[in-house]
């Protein structure tokens, strides 16, 4: 998906550049026929709109997934507090339940 999105973005950029080039050419032509510039021609406007859509598409897909900002979504909903490890104490029932005696650190 990332590759496709990137390619679409490049295409959009090229279209934008082409639209700019076409406008410059159009103004040059207007100078020759001695008319006033009132607005870009139709094909440039269409090109700009297509380029806009393509650039938005790639801008939304390339950087990655959207993250939820709702406080009650599964990503953000807080279900438990972390164990307060800085204040942990050791006189609890762990003493009574001996762990597996085979465990040993080999040095």
């Amino acid at each position, binding site marked *: 998906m990332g590759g496709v999105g990137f390619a679409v973005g490049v295409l959009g950029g090229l279209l934008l550049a082409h639209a700019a080039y076409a406008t410059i050419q159009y103004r040059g032509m207007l100078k020759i026929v001695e008319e006033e510039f009132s607005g870009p021609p139709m094909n440039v406007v269409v090109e700009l709109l297509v380029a806009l859509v393509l650039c938005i598409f790639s801008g939304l897909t390339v950087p990655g997934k959207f993250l939820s900002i709702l406080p009650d979504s599964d990503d953000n*909903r807080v279900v438990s*507090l*972390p164990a307060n490890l800085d*204040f942990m*104490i050791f006189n609890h029932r762990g003493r009574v339940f001996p*762990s597996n005696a085979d465990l040993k650190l080999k040095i």
Partner: protein
Amino acid sequence: MVGAAEEAQLNRLETQVDNGGGGAWEYLCHVRKLKARRPDKVLKHGLSILNNAKARSNLGAEEWTLYEQVAIAAMDCQRLDIAKDCISVLSKKFPGSTRVGRLEGMLFEASGAWADAERAYERLLQDSPHDQVIQKRKIAMAKALGNIAAAVEYLNKYLEIFMADQDAWRELAEIYVSLQMYKQAAFCYEELILCQPTDPLYHLAYAEVLYTMGGLENLQTAKKYYASAINFTGGKNTRALYGLCLCSSAINQITKGRNKEDKESPDLQSLVAEALVKDYKKKAPAKLPLVTNTLKSMKLIS
């Protein structure tokens, strides 16, 4: 704070590792990140990595973090021999380190040599008097010795200096609740809500303290905080739903026979009761009659 998705991932990793599916290091990282307390699993899987020279060297510098994690887990399981081995490896690598010194102090604590632990911490505090972790260990030690009054005193002194330490506020609040000093506990939870305004569990705990204190004004405030806890969890916290039910019925009893202004509007109560019934219908249909009977006796549903 532990999110729902993170907790689910931790549990998934735990079953995967327990069934021999690999991913032990990822699991241990997750335990560390979420600050979960699962000493037996950490000990087992941590040792399996540490005893495998190749897996251990793959970790690079993280190896020493793992030694520390396993040492603390071993103390938690009362496997002092393993803890001692881990700490000796660490002190060989980092001689004179405060962090290793703290581990040694904790080892004294775990073996019940309180005087030695006290001495070790005092020595470390002389070198760095503002080390938060060591001061917290001293507070925990007072608690472990059953000297709750001293623990409260130390904590208050500590919080005068380090006011932004949420863990300490939480610890103080829990100690106050265990001593039934609800007014003080409520103050601590207010601090916590100020620090973390979007954490529903602090809202919930604050509401519970207020509900326990009782009185119309406290009950009404408690109800608001239960409501905000429900808001932040999207109604998925059953405890908050029950709390709101209890608050409403208590308020109804107090305001019985009073004029209309003090009375609660019935909309919220019936809404919460409905949400509870719906939840039970979906997740535990066997318990549904019990819940409906209770809610009926509280006059929240008809």
